[in-house]
């Protein structure tokens, strides 16, 4: 029965399941820039369950602006050729660790707090989760952010990466528990 007027209620999500590893990961998926590229950093952390155990079967994706605050709209993420596409994918390892090699996003508006947009998928997680990983910029900029300013201090720190000695950015994600990551919903998710 072709040509039905589409019913515009959204198609519901389902878990990514346990068997995505041979389908979704690909060479270079988590490497948005080449090693040694100017401004290259590592963004990494662990994904934990409600008992603090790392998830060996989670998949993270990030979407980001470039250092100038522009969000790229160029193809080439699946066969990287040096273009910065602003999107990457990482499946967690046995211990729940994820990492990306990328550059730090700039603010996309004057005075904005720069962040990575993040989606989380996992076996056992029935639908995707959205969150943000903010750069550890100055307190005033973070305090002025519309999302962060509405959170208590504890929740706020769970969205801001820490800077490690080697320049890496680190943030652990907790799907559940006392350190649970704040996860996001957006206006159009309400239908």
């Amino acid at each position, binding site marked *: *029965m*072709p040509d039905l007027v589409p019913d515009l*209620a959204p198609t519901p999500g389902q878990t990514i399941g346990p068997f995505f590893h041979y389908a979704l990961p690909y060479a270079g998926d988590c490497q948005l820039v080449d090693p040694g590229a100017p401004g290259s950093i590592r963004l990494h952390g662990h994904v934990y369950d409600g008992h603090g155990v790392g998830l060996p079967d989670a998949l993270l994706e990030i979407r980001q602006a470039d250092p100038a605050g522009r969000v790229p709209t160029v193809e080439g993420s*699946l*066969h990287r050729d040096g273009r910065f596409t602003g999107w990457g994918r990482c499946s967690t390892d046995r211990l729940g660790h994820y990492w990306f090699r990328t550059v730090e996003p700039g603010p996309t508006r004057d005075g904005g707090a720069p962040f990575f947009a993040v989606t989380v998928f996992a076996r056992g997680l029935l639908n995707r989760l959205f969150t943000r990983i903010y750069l550890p910029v100055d307190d005033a900029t973070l305090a002025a952010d519309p999302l962060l300013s509405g959170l208590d201090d504890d929740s706020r720190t769970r969205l801001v990466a820490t800077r490690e000695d080697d320049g890496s950015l680190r943030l652990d994600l907790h799907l*559940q528990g006392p350190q649970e990551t704040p996860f996001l919903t957006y206006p159009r998710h309400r239908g």
Partner: protein
Amino acid sequence: MTTAEKLEGGLDTQQVISKEIAAIQAASPAAEPQPRLDFAPYRSSLLRHPTKDLRQADPEGAELVAPVFGQSDVDPLEADLTIQSGGEPIGERIVVTGRLVDGDGRPVRRQLVEIWHANAAGRYIHLRDQHPAPIDPNFTGTGRCLTDDEGVYSFTTIKPGPYPWHNHRNAWRPAHIHFSLFGTDFTQRMITQMYFPADPLFALDPIYQSITDPRVRERLVATYDHDLSQHDRLLGYRWDIVLTGAHATWTEPEGDDRA
């Protein structure tokens, strides 16, 4: 609990799981648009669902712009899962096609669709898949395509088989194809599963039943479409996909174009 069940690691029976599902669904408001994240009958969800409410965020910057994929990313041959190896895979050859639209009915054009699924015997080519069903040397079960200018995707493959899992005793997943989907803004990103009509396992499956409203979960079931079937060659299934609404469009980006 019987001795046999204890030997299986103390797994609950289907009856226990089905009772839990029925109790949750009876207490659910109608038309919940997405699966429950906290859905105990799916045992793996117990420690993997957030317990706090999702926070409202106004999308900005990168959230308003989906990644872009193109011809350099996807070979058109990747849409045919029956030609990826030396010979033809075993199973019912099928085509699965439909339109990808956003919450306002606009086609999502030239966007990446990724699929993966088990072979005709219900076995994935995955190290963690211990189901002792045969691997098909001519089937890997992964495909990609780009939607066309009308938002239409199409895959040629074989019909996957149902497979057992260890959520509870004698648990079987209805046959399904995993779909990974992007829209025009990043907040539309989703992964889901497409099912086949009239599967007798629907009522028993805690993943499918985590969508508590029957009309909502039926959106995941493809339709057999005889007009898509091809003489002497394959059977056709149609499955249209609607993403959540876009906050921005390609032509009217909000906040992503700061100079």
